[in-house]
């Protein structure tokens, strides 16, 4: 991708308008170089000044062209990929919704009752 295209892409990604400073931060190009590229794109009719100093927006003509291109591409999600793309919450796969557990019954009842009544008196 050449530098002019990179600048154009950043303006497009910033919702159609952007400042030289922002583009410089996003692309890593120097401020003067971005200014030079913006002037060049303005001359080509791709972008124009918003009226605010250092701010540019994509021209209506160029916007139309881009929209046309994007409109021609359909976003395709393969049916099998859907379940991998969406994060699944942790869920237990079981009829009872719980994992099976081992169970053991011990005849502690009376002993426990004695202990509890003792503890209640304390």
């Amino acid at each position, binding site marked *: 991708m050449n530098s002019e295209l990179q600048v154009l892409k950043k303006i497009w990604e910033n919702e159609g308008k952007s400042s030289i400073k922002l583009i410089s931060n996003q692309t890593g190009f120097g401020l003067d170089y971005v200014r030079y590229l913006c002037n060049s794109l303005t001359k080509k009719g791709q972008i124009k000044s918003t009226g605010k100093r250092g701010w540019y927006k994509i021209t209506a003509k160029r916007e139309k062209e881009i929209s046309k291109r994007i409109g021609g591409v359909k976003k395709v999600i393969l049916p099998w990929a859907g379940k*991998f793309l969406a994060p699944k919450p942790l869920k237990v796969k079981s009829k009872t919704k719980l994992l099976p557990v081992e169970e053991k019954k011990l*005849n502690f009842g009376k002993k*426990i009752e004695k202990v509890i009544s003792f*503890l209640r008196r304390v």
Partner: protein
Amino acid sequence: MTRESSPQKGKGMDIGTVFVYCAQKIGPEVTFRIQRNAFFDIEYSEFARGILEKSDVKYILSKDKIYVVGEDAIKFANAFGRNLRRPMRSGVISPREEEALPVIEVVIKSVLGEPSEKGELCYYSIPGTPVDADFDTIYHQNIIKGFLERWGYKPKPINEGLAIIFSELAEDNFTGIGLSFGGGMSNVCLAMMGVPVFSFSVARAGDWIDEQVAKATNRPVSKVTTFKEAYLNLKKSEGQMNKIEQALSIYYNNLIEYVLKQIKEEFERKAIPEFENPIPIVISGGTATPPGFIEKFREILKRTDFPLKVREVRLAPYPLYTVAKGTLIAAIADKEK
């Protein structure tokens, strides 16, 4: 359901490194629900999922992985030749396992179930502050508390050693030492009339023995664990023991000596009240279950300059269920007060 067999309100939980137990009193019986605190992960694929469905294995789905939790995880770990993963380590939630929280949540929920009423009391065991490791139990305690509250319980933590005292020392007025030798930790609590004088834990227990023996005998840890659980008999004379048994016996000795040394040091650090009579020591936990453990403990205690007079050393009648039983007693006694 008759009134006689209706469940009594209040539950007790023993949240251990290897197993999670939930105790509930139903009529004259106490029902224990048990889940292995372990899991195993497989990369997600329709094929793997299909196999699990066909084998009726319960699993957890995540973004890109399938987790087999509980007892079935062992089968898969053996089949794939990989180590079982554990959501807890050294008695607390493992910082090494990213998936520890969702897995432990499922494990606990599976044994605990729904509360019988909103705000049902649930006592859960927590280890004492470790004296030989650089971590505390605050995070673990609060995470478990959060789960229980979210499910509608009123959670209350209880020290593991104190739970043993509640379970086994009623006839001694809840005075004595409760000791648990679990998988990740050994817990100690000295209580007088049910009030803890001191309680602490050491980061050495069954897992530590397995790791040391594995290193000493150059065998995988899982093989040592399986051998220990299935065949170890500490009553055998040294001459009759094979290499693994000898190593296990050595590290069992070392663990008991280490715990007794830590108890002695605790006595030196703290002002301990005087006990009128010699005290009982009651021991529980899976690591204490091999035949000959209690005899070994008594023998080592005898040659130790122990700071208290000990009347007896005994193994709890059901050493695997003792802590859960103690937490249940605490829950019912608290609720009815």
